[in-house]
């Protein structure tokens, strides 16, 4: 099958900042994103786990966004504006997709 190169951005971010991050992605006009729950983790800010939490502070989410290489930089800038102030990380990788027009 013919495939087309895209970029996959993977963001791990604290839950209270999620809505802001998604608003930023909308603003950057990405064609879509998917949110996956994270259960636990460790980073510079220490260990965390969502087990037993009744509130939102202290939970993390993973957001995956497939975007065109040409639009990577503006999207990263919006993402970075949120993640720089909040607890979280960003990674970028190369992927292939089948229907290029979808993204």
């Amino acid at each position, binding site marked *: 099958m013919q495939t087309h190169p895209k970029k996959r951005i993977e963001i791990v971010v604290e839950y209270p900042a999620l809505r802001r991050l998604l608003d930023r992605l909308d603003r950057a006009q990405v064609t879509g994103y998917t949110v996956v729950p994270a259960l636990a983790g460790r980073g510079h800010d220490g260990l965390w786990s969502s087990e037993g939490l*009744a509130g939102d*502070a*202290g939970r993390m989410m993973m957001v995956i966004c497939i975007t065109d290489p040409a639009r990577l930089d503006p999207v990263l800038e919006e993402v970075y504006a949120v993640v720089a*102030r909040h607890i979280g990380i960003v990674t970028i990788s190369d992927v292939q997709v089948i229907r290029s027009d979808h993204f």
Partner: protein
Amino acid sequence: MSLVDLAAQNLLSPMVLFFALGLAAALARSDLTVPEAVAKTLALYLMLSIGFKGGVEVAANGITLRMIGVMGVGIVLSFALPVIGFLILRAVSGLSTVDAAAVAAHYGSISIVTFIAATEIVRGQNLPFEGYIVAVAAVMETPAILSALLLARSGQPSRNGNEGLGPLLHEVGLNGSVVMLVGSFLIGWATGPKGLQMIAPFIVDPFRGVLCLFLLDMGLVAGRGMREGARHLSAPVLGFGIVMPLISAALATLAIWPLGLSLGGAALFVTLAASASYIAVPAAMRLALPEAKPAIYLTLSLGVTFPFNLSLGIPLYLALAGLVAE
């Protein structure tokens, strides 16, 4: 009943013991956990129940001038307590302006679970209390957040910049737990005793047992927080977690004096002032003051102040209330 007897009796209640079980299990690194989805739902249940029952009592007794007075005092305290807490923290602890403001916000706001535990203790002493105290709890949740933001900005040039106060107020005011508490209160008010009768087997009868399960979970989370977060707390900060509730309680006792609340109501009001938020305010701080370290304020509120209030604080506040109540 003497203060010592009351404290002893409280320490042996299923509520406190389940919290202790959770704490011990987490400190011993047991893998016991309550799933997040269930913990969230237990919290919703407790707010639904306590809000609804409060509303029903207001429906039965109507709005009084006293009710408005108590709400006003509550709002003033929620604004004022963070300032006091902030000044103390800046004086005795090495915390930065932002960290001190964030911690102080928690102590101006309230903990609904501490409040609920207090209602159970008050009820255990067969003391009636004013139903509208639940509404007082609701209005005391957010003013402290505003105070803290102003305090935090006092110390640094405004770089909160790109996200204004408007969206923040929206997010805080429409926070799920606030909506649940206030909404249930209004529904209880609208449907009155007849509505209560319909759903009492769900919101009244099993209430205490559900509370035990929730406190077990809080113990687990608090214990985990203590294990991870203890190293972030210096001795003065730890001390603040015990002393600040006492200061708040003393001020609340004085402030409530002229209002002529019942003994039960006064004890609950004092408990509200002395309690520290651990759901609504932490989430607001992550949005408004992301530079503040959550390891400090979460560990202090949930790992120090909550256990203190649950075990010794509430009996003490009940005794304090006895000095000023009708």
